């Protein structure tokens, strides 16, 4: 249930929590399907982000994510346990992109 910034909202996403403005007023209820009009409307209403169902698309391309992973693990290559951690992380990253 990630919080998505207004720029990254897309029609068809469903709210996972009520959308409130910065004074706490509820603008949209839970489980509302967003449309282009709704997104436009809440853009001007002091909302800092919207919690939506499902995972958000990660903000960077998968190749970058995986390359950064390789870089972080560069000192521990060949360690049998760390190889397992790295594989689990690769599967996890793949999963983040598949859900969309």
């Amino acid at each position: 249930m990630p919080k998505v910034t207004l720029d990254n909202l897309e029609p068809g996403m469903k709210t996972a929590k009520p959308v409130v403005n910065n004074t706490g007023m509820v603008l949209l209820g839970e489980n509302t399907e967003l449309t282009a009009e709704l997104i436009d409307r809440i853009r001007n209403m002091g909302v800092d982000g919207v919690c939506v169902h499902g995972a958000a698309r990660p903000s960077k391309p998968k190749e970058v994510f995986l390359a950064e992973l390789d870089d972080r693990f560069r000192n521990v290559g060949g360690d049998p346990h760390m190889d397992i951690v790295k594989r689990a992380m690769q599967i996890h990253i793949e999963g983040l992109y598949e859900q969309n």
Partner: protein
Amino acid sequence: MSKIDVRLVREKVENIHALPTIPKVLNKLLGVIENPRVSLNEISNFISGDPALTTKVLRMVNSPVYGFPGRISSVNQAVILLGLTVVKGLLLGVSVFDLMQKTMIGLWEHSIGTAIFSRIIAVRKGHKEPDEVSVNGLLHDIGKVFLVLQFPEEYEKALNETQESGVVIYEAEKNHFNTSHASVGSWMARKWRFPLGLIDVIEYHHKPHLTKNTPLESSIVHIADILVRARGYGFPGDNLIMPVQPEAWELLGLTEKDLVEVLKEAEDSLQMTEDLTL
């Protein structure tokens, strides 16, 4: 290379109250949590008497780091639900938040991430007090805050060394201070009379195979630290990862499948807390 004398570091920790870099509100708070006989009521009143602190505590307990997001509306309720040990740790956590934000960008996220992973692993392992393990995770790197604040120039050299030589910050600290954030953090925790378990985990989170008292908790925080680094969440002082201690690995017995599930479970919480400012 010239090193900071470890005795000087130790001395500064012992005199932490008199240090100009430690904010007044933190000192006031430490006065309260240092008292081993402080009651839940006193803690609760202390928090409630400070609106800024109240807001921070409520934001924190309602964050996905704990199991009941969005349901706790009063400090009293938080203190009762979480218990004294967790609330004390949490108070220190939220109080060093500002310091972390000012001294080391990303250390707060790293700490929160470690708290989230620690809790998830503790629950999976059937630990009786997952929230306490989570606080251990939240505070495991508190020694870094002290080192950056007290020895900014030397610490910057250590940070540069991680970039240049590709060593993790824990090793670079030893090259510059003859000690590490783990030892410094445990001195602080002892000075503040934190529970023995917490002192122990802070001291041994890089070498969980050496503790006699908290092998399970230290191993959990050790692996949580590695997972949050693997995920690339936050910044602990370097962009690298250290190998897991084989004993900790054996003790927890996590398989690749387990790890994938833990990562998946943590993902939502991580994304939701990414912008958790207190």
